């Protein structure tokens, strides 16, 4: 219910309402197409628009969720102190509400990609596992950030800057082949990079995933989740104590 309410709230008051959830990614693809075909990188592979769209979709899911996640405990204090809502449920519900947009983005990507002659096979279904991995990471990281924010209120600004830095360390615009050759530590040290590389493998190149990266990223996901659960269990009661 909280997830549904959060999702609805995003479009509350707008005339077109939830239709924006479809229009937004559609216009985004169109704008990338026009910008990257006629203005920037004119000699690029036409599939670069799809490459970029997947990168931005993954990054937006991560950044939107974690950005919201930083203040989630404080923002939902009224549910914790008045009806005793389980704190972990708040994080799952929040990530779930954004997941709908993510799923819509991927769905529209798949439709548009057919126009660019992208082929799909059974391995493309691994997108579900990759998304689940991303979901775990987002929930775990949000729990960690939100607990830190209870003690360090300026942390929201620190995270804003970290996300800006993160955008350029993940191969969203630049070629992900570099991470294998020049910057391998980024592939193994940053799970978002690994998920993105594997997502492109299954949804753009019709190839299989890198299993070692896949396993490592799941380990990251569970690790973040365990740390997150531990932190909110130990420290999150502070949210009721602090204004």
């Amino acid at each position, binding site marked *: *219910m*909280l997830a549904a*309410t959060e999702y*609805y*709230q995003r479009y*509350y008051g707008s005339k077109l309402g939830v239709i924006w959830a479809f229009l937004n990614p559609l216009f985004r693809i169109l704008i990338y197409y026009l910008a990257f075909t006629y203005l920037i990188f004119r000699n690029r592979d036409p599939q670069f628009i799809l490459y970029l769209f997947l990168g931005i979709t993954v990054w937006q899911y991560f950044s939107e969720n974690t950005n919201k996640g930083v203040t989630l405990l404080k923002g939902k*204090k*009224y*549910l*914790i*102190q*008045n*009806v*005793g*809502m389980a704190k972990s449920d708040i994080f799952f519900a929040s990530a779930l509400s954004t997941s709908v947009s993510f799923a819509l983005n991927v769905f529209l990507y798949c439709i548009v990609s057919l126009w660019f002659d992208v082929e799909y096979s059974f391995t493309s279904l691994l997108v579900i596992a990759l998304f689940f991995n991303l979901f775990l990471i987002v929930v775990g990281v949000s729990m960690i950030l939100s607990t830190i924010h209870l*003690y*360090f*209120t*300026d942390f929201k600004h620190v995270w804003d800057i970290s996300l800006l830095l993160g955008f350029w360390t993940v191969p969203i615009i630049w070629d992900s082949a570099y991470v294998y050759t020049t910057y391998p530590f980024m592939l193994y040290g940053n799970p978002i990079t690994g998920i993105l590389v594997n997502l492109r493998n299954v949804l753009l190149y019709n190839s299989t995933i890198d299993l070692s990266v896949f396993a490592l990223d799941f380990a990251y996901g569970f690790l973040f989740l365990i740390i997150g659960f531990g932190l909110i269990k130990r420290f999150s*009661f502070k949210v*009721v*104590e602090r204004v």
Partner: protein
Amino acid sequence: MTNANNIVSLQHVSKTFTVFDHHGKNLGQRISQALGWGKARKIKVLDNVQIEINRGDFVGIIGKNGSGKTTLMHMISGAIKPNKGGVVNRVGSFIRLSLGMGFNPELSARQNVLLNASILGVPLKEIRKQFDEIIAFAELGSFSDTQLKFFSTGMRARLAFAVAVLVETDLLLMDEFFGGVGDEAFKKKAHKVFNESLLKDKTVVLISHNMETIKKYCNRVFVINDGKVSCFEDPSEAIHFYRNNVLGMNSENQSNSESLDP
């Protein structure tokens, strides 16, 4: 010895808050304060508290403003943890009613009711079925789809009360709630529901400055003074203790004070 009826037990519980009085003047002070290294003051709100609440109890909490009544209430619900001592909490679900009760102001009354009641385990079908009744009870007929930010405090309080009527919780927490719940007519209606159905099989913890309410409903009263909690089985005795030992009032003053609305 364990009491089977016991749902909350605070054993030698103490709670201290850390308060920063001023913002740092220069960047260094601000950074150290942000990291929690700044000059801080410790305020002991609860000191070695030992209380028990049993199923079906109607417990009153009285004390001066800022004495730690709400902190004790949060401790009972399990929303905050003590620095010292242990809490045995067997409360499955609770709802806390307070005047500034934090519904989400960006959501409508309908969404807030759906959200809160569903968290408290009421099936969506049931909430939808009873929604019109809730809105009618709260006298919010034409405002059911209005965002709560446009509601007055009284309207919010009425909505909160209506939600509390709908849900089945183990524990009902009322934090100085009744006084602002509406006009006289609504208060009368709320008191009637409170007596006839809301209290049925419920454990209630009530914070109030209205000694009449405390005397009328409570079977046990906790008086807070300087972090210490004194427990009384007889409300009249508790009120007498509060007036004499906490407020320092003589019997002449007593008849004219604290009989107003909670």
